[in-house]
């Protein structure tokens, strides 16, 4: 199909509109993060006086640095556990025939559908009683649970595409089912595991509701939650500059991540949609 000039122009305009709409708030945040406290409320979109003070401010206080560390730690641990468990479950879903298989898939999808807001209060009470409140495991456990359905769904699509004969060959070569999985199937599913890990990590990194509900201090508070606890120099000053700077700091890794892995992420989200 040849595209005519009016079509090209039309699409270009539409694309530009979308890009501008998306970029305006983003650029605004970046712009705010470079403004001085006094000029935050001035009418200019771009800062008139550039300053690093917002960044130096947040990066020298433990109210932001510690949550950043929590975010990385909790995200990494939850991702690791979720991918290991999900790959085993996905392997079973893709390869084995067992009673209750459809129930398992159904239940895991159900968990993904469940509105998090409905879970926040019960989880808060449960974790308080169990002593998990305001600890790393207190966030890691629900994150693993929410990451699993996504992981199982994505990984089983990858496993389904690995020829079954490879596994038969490994068995005939003398491998136990576990060896066949670890030495033949898992290495071949590695791209799928990386994709799943990225998706689960992004979810953990961005999660706000549970993070704000299940934490109380910087001992376990993650970066998005910490943002909401920023205070200004006085009770009446809103710390817009600091919040903007922190938002930029936690967004940059994600942008780099997504740009770098965008093909993988799309492949992971859509694989299994057409095939399998």
């Amino acid at each position, binding site marked *: 199909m040849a595209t005519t000039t009016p079509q090209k122009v039309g699409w270009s305009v539409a694309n530009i509109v979308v890009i501008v709409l998306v970029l305006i708030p983003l650029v605004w945040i970046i712009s705010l993060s470079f403004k001085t406290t006094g000029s935050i409320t001035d009418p200019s979109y771009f800062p008139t006086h550039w300053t690093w003070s917002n960044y130096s401010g947040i990066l020298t206080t433990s109210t932001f640095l510690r949550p950043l560390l929590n975010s990385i730690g909790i995200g990494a641990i939850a991702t690791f556990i979720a991918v290991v468990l999900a790959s085993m479950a996905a392997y079973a879903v893709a390869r084995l025939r067992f009673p209750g298989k459809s129930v398992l898939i159904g239940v895991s999808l159900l968990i993904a559908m469940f509105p998090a807001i409905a879970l926040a209060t019960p989880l808060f009470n449960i974790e308080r009683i169990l002593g998990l409140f305001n600890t790393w495991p207190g966030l890691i456990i629900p994150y693993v649970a929410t990451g699993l359905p996504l992981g199982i769904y994505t990984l089983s699509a990858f496993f389904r595409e690995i*020829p079954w004969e*490879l596994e038969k060959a490994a068995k005939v*070569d*003398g491998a136990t089912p576990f060896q066949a999985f670890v030495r033949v199937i898992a290495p*071949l599913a590695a791209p799928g595991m990386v994709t799943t890990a990225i998706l689960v990590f992004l979810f953990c990194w961005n999660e706000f509701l549970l993070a704000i509900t299940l934490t109380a201090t910087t001992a376990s508070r993650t970066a998005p939650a910490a943002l909401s606890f920023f205070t200004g120099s006085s009770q009446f000053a809103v710390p817009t500059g600091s919040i903007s700077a922190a938002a930029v700091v936690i967004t940059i890794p994600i942008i780099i991540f997504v740009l770098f892995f965008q093909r993988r992420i799309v492949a992971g989200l859509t694989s299994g949609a057409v095939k399998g």
Partner: protein
Amino acid sequence: MAEIILEHVTKRFPDGALAVDDFNLDIADGEFVILVGPSGCGKSTTLNMIAGLEDISSGELRIGGQVVNQKSPKDRDIAMVFQSYALYPHMTVRENMGFALKLAKTPRDVINQKVEEAARILDLTQHLDRKPANLSGGQRQRVAMGRAIVRDPAAFLMDEPLSNLDAKLRVQTRTEVSRLQKRLGTTMVYVTHDQVEALTLGDRVAVMRSGLLQQVASPQELYDRPVNLFVAGFIGSPSMNFMSGALEEGKLRTGLGDIPIAGQLQRDLAGSKVGRDVIVGIRPENFEDGALVPAEHRHNGITFPASIDVVESLGSEKFVYFSKELGTVETAELAELARDAGRAEGGATEETVVARLDPATTITEGQDTELWVDVRAVHVFDPETGRNLTRGTDSRATAAPAAPPASAAAPAAGPDDSAAGQDTGSTATPPR
């Protein structure tokens, strides 16, 4: 090294489908046995059961004297080559070939030595450090073979290992497989749907149809003395011509003419009722151009008029196709063979006869001519059971079908009725 014995082996899938039904076969140590049949006949399932990749529903499987029904593949000491080769894509050729030994915790220098030895035999030495994705189809096939031979197993199992190669390479590799098996002297079970491959490779060939073993015999025996309609139609290319016939006093009435019942044919058909309907089978090479038959052989056959539709000259032989009112033959066996060959069911090819003639023939397309058919080679089948009533049919002087020598189509010179009705027991010991 080991013999493989299958006794009453049956495979029934959970959905109730019977894939293999009461399969009995003794495979001797060092023997090369082919399982052949159309798609869905249960040959691959049988192989998978020997490998341990499929459970055996009932019956007993012994490898090297041990019952292995319940053993996992890794404890059976067998190596398998898959149709898709199933090479591990993330490993180099060297790692692929050494994987089994590595799992068996063989010392690294022994693995290297064995892999290099196998690579030398298979001409893969310069490719050892490449990944399978960078190899050609033929090289991948050899890596798959190499992966099997480095283990020095009790038996090789091959599941259509050549079907992914192009025609020329397939013929070449076929010879290599045969040579390799002779050299290693290891028991080999080989599955194929290609009857030419089956006849050229095997010490013995087992023909299967819908889960049932039809006949086990040497290739020549299968060709000369098929036990039933299915084997007769499956083995041989082009396949046997079938036509309806009627047994009468002293003669067999067919669309080609009346065939006198004498000699071996008389002995074979002695017990059959006069007047019954039969199916007559004649191989293409049993026809000859009437003008080329020496006078002293004429009495061994009958001549009949034919108008030739198509002549295909292959240099060393000529195939001619002619149509004749022969009476349509319809049985389940033949319908299945037609399906397998990709022909429409009950297609119009039924009444077209193929004849393989001496290349010296001057017959041309559209010509009305006279053909001669050697009646000593006629097969007569029971239309109800498909059983061959003439199993003692004398083997002609025709050579093995895959290697047609120049004079292959020449009529037999030997005296009539030489071979007596030798029994083709389904578990006969191999000719070794």
